[in-house]
């Protein structure tokens, strides 16, 4: 099979630029799409051609399937890359593309459906041998709850079977608390979900967010490209990501890696994907979810593995062979850390769109910048606040941190507020330098932000 002639990039901002770059390097022409708010955006300037697909609201442009398909038709594109967010994990969109004769560059609709639903994903993960958080089945009554929770070890998370997304969850720290909270939780669950069933899971106070990068060719081969640590988050929004994680030993990497390679081969996974796990204080990993898309933080993996993930997505979608180690393990080398530079107030996290009057990106040794802006660009208020990603490479974590700090110090963005100062605080923190991370890191740093 041959590569595509022309790829339509169904996204905006830095990821659209990233995909355009990958296409350029493969000799593929690109079509940018944009809303009226993005007529001057960098991805529009860099693409070979550009099509305006609608007004600023994303539902009328970047999420508007007919406009995207029509844009691909009139521009003569033969494939669509969805980036991340927007329609990237939408199985229906992938199917519509296929029906219209356009190759969707990403996982199959089946992959998306299998892993998109949390309940079925957990069951699939269990079947494929991935580690899950210790827990109980549905509890008969409060006595069984106390008995089983004591066996698991307090604290535990009491969860409603009918709940989801954090709703119907209570942290229980002792048997007495269980006796008090169980009836209350049951009543609340019945009222909220018309289902009073409850179960317990072990509760992790200071979890780390660890994720493994996966590639599958959809024809029985799969690879694991090491892990990333993304523990530094603010309300589930990742801010700093790195590869590898100081908390993952080579043994853990090998053991889980073998499971993941087998799981992805068995489930026929296609394209890039990420298995997200939670790590407790003792280093035990538990499956959380799988993301069936390229992720924001993919560059740190690219740097330490020397594999261009977006290029691999395109090659796999075109049916070209993947030239990676037969055993499925892609080794890592050195260390990479990424900071997401957002247009927002560094204290309150209030988004700060507006005219970028000056932009001097960092450079020099070990620095990669993946951006979607330029000096003179007006950041629209209609979309997310990510301006660019600053990624530092070093032979070890210490050098990566030194370079990151230096690069943050030399970054100049004028006209709008950014979170560069917050990143400098993070990078200077002794816990960060020592690799003592958890999803509570920013809380401990006293960073919460003003928004609910």
């Amino acid at each position, binding site marked *: 099979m041959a590569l595509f002639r022309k790829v339509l990039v169904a996204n905006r901002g830095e990821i659209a630029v990233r995909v355009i770059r990958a296409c350029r390097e493969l000799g593929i022409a690109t079509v940018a799409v944009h809303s009226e708010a993005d007529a001057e955006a960098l991805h529009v300037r860099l693409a070979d*051609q550009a099509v305006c697909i609608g007004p600023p609201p994303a539902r009328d442009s970047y999420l508007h399937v007919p406009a995207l398909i*029509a844009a691909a038709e*009139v521009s003569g594109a033969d494939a669509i890359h969805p980036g991340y967010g927007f329609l990237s994990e939408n199985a229906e969109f992938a199917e519509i593309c296929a029906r219209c004769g356009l190759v969707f560059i990403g996982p199959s609709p089946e992959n998306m459906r299998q892993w998109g639903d949390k309940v079925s994903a957990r069951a699939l993960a269990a079947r494929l041998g991935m580690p899950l958080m210790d827990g109980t089945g549905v509890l008969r009554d409060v006595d069984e709850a106390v008995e089983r929770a004591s066996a698991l070890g307090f604290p535990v998370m009491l969860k409603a079977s009918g709940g989801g997304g954090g709703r119907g969850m209570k942290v229980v720290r002792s048997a007495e608390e269980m006796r008090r909270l169980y009836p209350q939780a049951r009543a609340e669950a019945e009222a909220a979900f018309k289902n009073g069933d409850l179960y317990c899971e072990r509760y992790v106070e200071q979890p780390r967010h660890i994720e493994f990068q996966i590639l599958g060719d959809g024809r029985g081969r799969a690879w694991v490209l090491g892990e990333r640590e993304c523990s530094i988050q603010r309300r589930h929004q990742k801010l700093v990501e790195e590869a590898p994680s100081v908390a993952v030993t080579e043994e853990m990497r090998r053991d889980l890696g073998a499971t993941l390679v087998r799981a992805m081969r068995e489930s026929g996974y296609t394209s890039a994907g990420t298995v997200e796990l939670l790590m407790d204080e003792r280093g035990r990993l538990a499956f959380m979810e799988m993301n069936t898309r390229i992720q924001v933080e993919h560059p740190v993996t690219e740097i330490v593995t020397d594999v261009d993930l977006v290029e691999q997505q395109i090659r796999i979608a075109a049916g070209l062979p993947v030239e990676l180690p037969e055993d499925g393990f892609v080794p890592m080398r050195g260390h990479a850390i990424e900071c997401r530079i957002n247009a927002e107030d560094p204290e309150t996290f209030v988004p700060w769109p507006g005219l970028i009057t000056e932009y001097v990106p960092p450079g020099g040794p070990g620095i990669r910048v993946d951006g979607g802006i330029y000096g003179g660009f007006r950041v629209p208020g209609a979309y997310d606040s990510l301006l660019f990603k600053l990624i530092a490479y070093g032979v070890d974590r210490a050098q990566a941190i030194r370079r990151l700090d230096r690069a943050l110090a030399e970054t100049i963005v004028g006209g709008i507020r950014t979170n560069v100062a917050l990143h400098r605080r993070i990078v200077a923190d002794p816990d960060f330098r020592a690799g003592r991370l958890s999803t509570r890191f920013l809380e401990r740093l006293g960073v919460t932000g003003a928004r609910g």
Partner: protein
Amino acid sequence: MNIDLERIEALLRAMSEHDVRELEIEQGDQRLVLRRGVGAPVPAPLAVAAPAVAPATVLPAAVPVSTTAPATIPPPAPASPASETPGEQYVTSPFVGTFYRAPRPDAPPFVQPGDEVRAGTTLCIVEAMKLMNEIEAEFDCTILEVLVENGKPVEFGQRLFRVRRR
């Protein structure tokens, strides 16, 4: 050069009156740039990426620390249908697709320059996703000009017809 805001307002008025898009003055270490109305969509549909035209600013060049706030010039002209000369408006494409002037290749065009049409009259077809979408006049008007060639791709918001409202 003596830059004061009243003067610049006067200049802007003059630029607007005379349809001047851009004005740039550089003198010693001073520099004045004015640009107006980026409203017109890129003339060549689906051609190369449109070059950026940043909103104009007034600034002293080569002065590192200054309290002079950049004066921002009015934002781009409003979207479809925008009036340019009095009474004239544009009919724009409501979506991306392919523009057809007639219902079939062998049929006569829906409208011709000079035609006077009523609101609701079909002006053209924009095909998207194999669907033929008829574009109708939203108000009574006279067709002054057809701006897109038959069978060519059009973008969202692209001008299709220049008309005069009646």
